[in-house]
């Protein structure tokens, strides 16, 4: 039977692009965008996208009654978090004066601070553009992707993982930060694979082909 990849419709982020990129990467799977509990529970793969503020992401999930079903489904269904979809998986974010996250990974979400006062050498915020991802841990989702390959980022907040073995990808910007995190059936990235050319499509293809074990 055709595999079904469900992109959870959290009302934010470029869902069209994510759907389109997965279809292109793996033409033989069914890709749907949904906020139906039934569809989410019966997915073969789940994608948690997202852009913008973590508070509205979480309240959107709660208002649609999706929080409990999502928590249950992500215990066993292979799940890919993208951008804000990675950040919500942490314990805590300092956004909006402090918000509790889904707690899938111990660690927090914090804001970039200018490396020095504004001037000709200061690094800009948001971190926007193509940056390298160093693969710290072997993982099926890195299959056929060169270590240090560049992916497209756009974000002002970043993840600090408490457990270094869960930080499977790292990127340098102002400081070294966790750009990919994983455990068991969960894999999440700060960058946008759907906007990262061939290497992004390869990561999405790897996700579709993944059996959910590290």
């Amino acid at each position, binding site marked *: 039977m055709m595999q079904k990849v469900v992109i959870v419709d959290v009302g*934010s982020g*470029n869902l*069209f*692009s994510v759907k*389109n*990129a997965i279809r*292109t990467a793996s033409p033989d799977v069914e890709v749907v965008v949904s906020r139906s509990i039934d569809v989410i529970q019966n997915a073969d793969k789940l994608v948690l996208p997202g*852009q*913008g*503020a973590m508070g509205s992401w979480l309240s959107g999930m709660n208002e649609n009654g999706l929080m409990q079903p999502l928590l249950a489904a992500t215990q066993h269904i292979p799940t890919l978090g993208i951008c804000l979809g990675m950040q919500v998986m942490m314990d805590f974010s300092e956004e909006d004066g402090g918000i509790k996250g889904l707690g899938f990974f111990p660690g927090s979400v914090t804001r970039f601070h*200018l490396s020095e006062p*504004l*001037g*000709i050498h*200061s*690094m*800009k*915020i*948001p*971190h*926007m*553009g*193509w*940056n*390298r991802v160093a693969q710290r841990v072997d993982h099926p989702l890195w299959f056929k992707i060169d270590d240090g390959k*560049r992916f*497209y980022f*756009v*974000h*002002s907040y970043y993840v600090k993982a408490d457990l270094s073995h869960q930080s499977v990808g790292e990127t*340098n*910007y102002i400081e070294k930060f966790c750009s990919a995190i994983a455990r068991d059936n969960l894999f999440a990235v700060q960058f*946008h694979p*759907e*906007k*990262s*050319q*061939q290497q*992004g*499509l390869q990561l999405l293809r790897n996700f579709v082909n993944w059996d959910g074990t590290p």
Partner: protein
Amino acid sequence: MLAKRIIPCLDVDAGRVVKGVNFVGIRDAGDPVEVACRYNDEGADEITILDITASSDDRNTIVDVIEDVASNVFIPLTVGGGIRELNDIKRVLDAGADKVSINTAAVFRPEFVREASIYYGSQCIVVAIDAKRVVTATGSDWEIFTHGGRRSTGIDAVDWAQQMTEFGAGELLVTSMDRDGCREGFDNELNAIISASVAVPVIASGGVGNLDHLADGVIYGRADAVLAASIFHFGEYTIGEAKQHMQTRGIEVNL
């Protein structure tokens, strides 16, 4: 290290890529999807589409163009031109754009930028700044112009850049109206002053005639990204050649 970006820009009129050359006439540069795919294959870091459609009858063709382009390229897509209200933003984001570029509407009503960034997030709000050098009592300065550089606003370009950033712009696209279409290089003095005055990335635009101009935009203009149209449209240079050249000048690029 974060790479400096090269962004080819497609001016689209009624579904076709067009580009005025030195203000004389409009040259047809092809089908937007074909052109975008070529740039994607050549390694463009992003693509910008400016809707310059004059006739309101053809206004909806841009949505089809965005959908077609977004289905075929897997790099970020920015769309500008005619973005005046939140619904315009929704329309192009739903069609597959990642960012919108706001220009005249921001000058008429700066609060629009604040509303747009609260509603859609700063990461997808680019404010386009068209600036022109003006002579003042103390020397020269830059002022914001609208209507393709014809109408003065009296707004200082650096003050404006800072205000737009405070209002939530996630990126600034700075075009020198003195240089646009002239192929003499960016106004690097303007770009460097703006880049040093704001925390968000700055895209330099207007005036590229050769590959050194792109590199100069980063080195002297302190731009985080460089935008060009005609040098790529008519096959003078490929994106790959531009990146190679920037790398030889010591700039970090995504090759």
